[in-house]
């Protein structure tokens, strides 16, 4: 019976399909190779690419070598300047006059080595590579009489330029965020780490999309087992659709269905580079401004970039309040329901009487109020995401007035409930990681239900269950609550509190980095000693 229910949710494409022809065609490009006839090659290539109108062909004649050639490129993907100036111009104009060089060497080699003044190029023979390269934005040069061609790198994408990161603003830190173009992202990372051990590995994922995914790590710091595990799992992904960070996260982590995020996503280069320097692995996806960092623990999800720009004590205090906010965001409405409906003896007498008088005319029981306000909050948050900027002001005023004031005056909700829910909402937005924020929001409802049925005992049992669940989450051998349990006081320097930079000499231990020393205090100590000696 349950199997039937499951079958309903299953995709119909899981069952056997007969639409495998095109897939076979697309797959088997490998077996097609270039022939010596240029025209045939071009026609075949255009046919493989569906004869789209934006694939341009430019036929050339190279005078000095007396050869015909053709250049194929996709107009909108290439940097047209390079194609014109450095490929077509040398082959046409500059080779128009000059001695006959046919006798010197193989014309193909002459063209490849001496005539073209473009950058990186490769020799290609099978349509598999050629089609992919043209799709990527490279230019294909086909020479009559040879069954091999040249693929020249000419990528010139248009995309967003580097701007402020949207969801992770920082007060003092750099205001650069990743963009959708892979090259720009890699540039941002390379600018911050000039270590030659920084390694980028390229992988191609997606049958129809052939998206590029880059694994970044620093050789000599990162534990090699992490890298190999990530690599194996990524190479095992076999989907049609374009790959985004949710799909990669799903395949990398060990508990993909859990609501707690087990990878960190970030839009900021400085966050990614500090993660790399600690010994984590970063995965950069083409077309997405978010970069995945793995393996990750719950305390590291609660770190934000601003912590590192402030004084140690201030930053520690702010970080501790973030832990408190996480708990408040998940538990505060449930605590309110539990205390007012089950244990009003806990409140001081005056407060109990004011809450009772505030709720005196309200027709709904506390739990209904709480659920109604929670739903309203979710609606407001969703609306806020999709607002066009022109309407933004109206909705916030309407939301505030309608929900807040008028509902209280009409006697539908009590003012205390509005305070509780707005406090919860604000607390939940202090969580730096958006997925963790969503997880705590989801947890509100089961806790509220538990609080309605069983009061404070229900909340205690719910907390124990969630805690037990969190304690058993493990990713790549690192447990989710790592510096808190198992207990390693040395690692507390960067999780609960942030100690001053004079003490962060070693890298965090839970990632088992191969190179553990982070900061060498030798010089500073010498300078200080000198200053002391001189001062006296």
């Amino acid at each position: 019976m349950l199997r039937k229910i499951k079958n309903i949710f299953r995709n119909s494409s899981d069952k056997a399909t007969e639409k495998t022809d095109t897939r076979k065609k697309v797959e088997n490009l490998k077996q097609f190779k270039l022939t010596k006839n240029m025209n045939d090659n071009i026609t075949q290539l255009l046919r493989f690419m569906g004869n789209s109108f934006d694939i341009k062909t430019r036929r050339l004649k190279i005078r000095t070598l007396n050869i015909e050639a053709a250049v194929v490129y996709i107009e909108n993907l290439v940097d047209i300047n390079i194609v014109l100036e450095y490929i077509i111009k040398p082959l046409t104009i500059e080779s128009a006059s000059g001695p006959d060089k046919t006798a010197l060497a193989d014309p193909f080699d002459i063209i490849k080595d001496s005539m073209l003044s473009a950058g990186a190029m490769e020799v290609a023979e099978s349509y598999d590579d050629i089609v992919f390269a043209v799709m990527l934005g490279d230019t294909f040069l086909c020479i009559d009489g040879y069954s091999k061609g040249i693929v020249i790198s000419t990528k010139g994408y248009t995309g967003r330029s580097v701007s402020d990161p949207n969801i992770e603003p920082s007060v003092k830190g750099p205001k650069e965020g990743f963009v959708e173009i892979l090259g720009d992202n890699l540039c941002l990372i390379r600018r911050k780490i000039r270590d030659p051990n920084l390694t980028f590995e390229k992988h191609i994922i997606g049958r129809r999309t052939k998206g590029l995914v880059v694994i970044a790590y620093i050789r000599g710091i990162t534990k090699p087992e992490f890298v190999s595990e990530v690599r194996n799992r990524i190479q095992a992904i076999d989907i049609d659709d374009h790959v985004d960070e949710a799909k990669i996260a799903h395949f990398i982590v060990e508990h993909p269905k859990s609501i707690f995020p087990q990878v960190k996503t970030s839009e900021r280069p400085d966050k990614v580079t500090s993660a790399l320097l600690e010994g984590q692995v970063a995965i950069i996806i083409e077309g997405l401004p978010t970069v995945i960092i793995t393996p990750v623990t719950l305390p590291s999800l609660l770190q934000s970039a601003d912590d590192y720009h402030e004084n140690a004590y201030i930053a520690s205090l702010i970080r501790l309040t973030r832990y408190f906010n996480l708990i408040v965001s998940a538990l505060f409405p449930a605590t309110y329901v539990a205390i007012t409906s089950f244990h009003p003896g806990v409140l001081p007498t005056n407060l109990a009487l004011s809450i009772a008088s505030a709720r005196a005319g309200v027709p709904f029981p506390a739990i209904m109020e709480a659920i109604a306000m929670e739903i309203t909050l979710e609606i407001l948050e969703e609306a806020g995401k999709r607002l066009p900027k022109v309407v933004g002001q109206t909705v916030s005023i309407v939301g505030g007035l309608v929900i807040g004031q008028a509902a209280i005056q009409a006697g539908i909700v009590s003012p205390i409930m509005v305070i509780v829910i707005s406090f919860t909402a604000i607390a939940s937005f202090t969580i730096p990681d958006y997925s963790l924020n969503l997880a705590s929001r989801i947890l509100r409802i089961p806790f509220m239900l538990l609080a309605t049925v069983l009061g404070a005992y229900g909340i205690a049992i719910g907390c124990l269950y969630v805690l037990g669940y969190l304690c058993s989450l493990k990713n790549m051998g690192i447990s989710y609550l790592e510096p808190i349990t198992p207990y390693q006081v040395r690692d507390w320097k960067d999780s609960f509190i942030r100690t001053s930079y004079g003490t962060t000499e070693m890298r965090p231990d839970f990632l088992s980095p191969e190179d553990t020393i982070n900061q060498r205090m030798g010089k500073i100590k010498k300078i200080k000693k000198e200053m002391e000696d001189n001062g006296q």
Partner: protein
Amino acid sequence: MNRTTISNFQIMTLAVGTVASAKIFMVQQQLVLISKQDAWISMLLGSILTQLSAMNIYYLSILNPGKDLPQIYLQNFGKVLGRFLLIGGIIYIFTYICVITKVFTEVVKTFLLTETPATFISVLLILTIITVVRKGVESITKMSNIIAPFFLITLFLIIILSAKEANIANIKPILYKNTLNVLKGAIPAYASFLGHTFISFLLLYTPEPKKTFKWYMIGIAIPMFIYTLLTFMTMLVFDPTEVETMMYPTLSLSKSIEFPITLLERLEILMIIIWIPAMFIAISTYLYANIRSIVVFFNLKEKHHTYLAYLYLIPIVLTFYVTQDSIQTIDYINTIEIFGTIQVGVMLPIITLISLIRNKKEKKKQKQNISP
């Protein structure tokens, strides 16, 4: 990465959680019935006895490295006699779990939720415990890492905040014609710390068993210190005739605190809410110990562990229909504790002796094998 390892610090917090929580609400009443105003001295004596017993068990586990308590029984006594003695241990832990759950449900039902059926409360607790125990002993120790500090801090707070009400006259005269009673009272005090035997089940998971000794002893000493302080404070604030009438002296202590700056009024509800996770840890450890014992007893395979855990639900619910009211529960606890005290206090030293003799024999055999 896959082998469970428990660090030394986790042993310490697990000790705090297991030993400190079970009878913290009721132990003063039992002691005062016997030793009147010197109940705190009995508690102190009981703590010393427990320390000795803990050293005994630790030594036993060191003598048989890599084995936990049921396996030690089987190895030292042979298969049949060992199993026979093991039954005693299984029955004791099992009945203890049932009674402790009953006490837990009673306290929750009296103070927090009066109308909810008791079965519901206890079933929910046991289900949550089973889901955590199934994931292995590592989850329990990690949870204890987080929970134990909060529990300790709350207890300290209660002790410190009730110092305002203390009145030295209540514990005087000290040891006036009372010495025999004080000694008699040390036995229930010792019996309330019987949870310290868990170390024999977990020592094999630590990376360096010899170094765990210090942490283990600290972990046992902290709850005993707190229990003694708590008894001392209870005797200071209330006098003996009063404490005899209280069912839950610690909660009455929390009730009598009135601190004008606190945010909340009835601190005993807060105390109970913090006590629930501590009881959770204690019952989880006992449950784990019991499951291991049964598995070794019947020679079951690893994967049957988890189903066995679910089976526990039935007997625990059934015990609710055996013990009817709260006074009877106290009698049951006393009986079970006597049984447990004999097991731990008398039998375990005997086992250690036997184990020691066997070890020496084997060492002699090895020397004889090496020399010729």
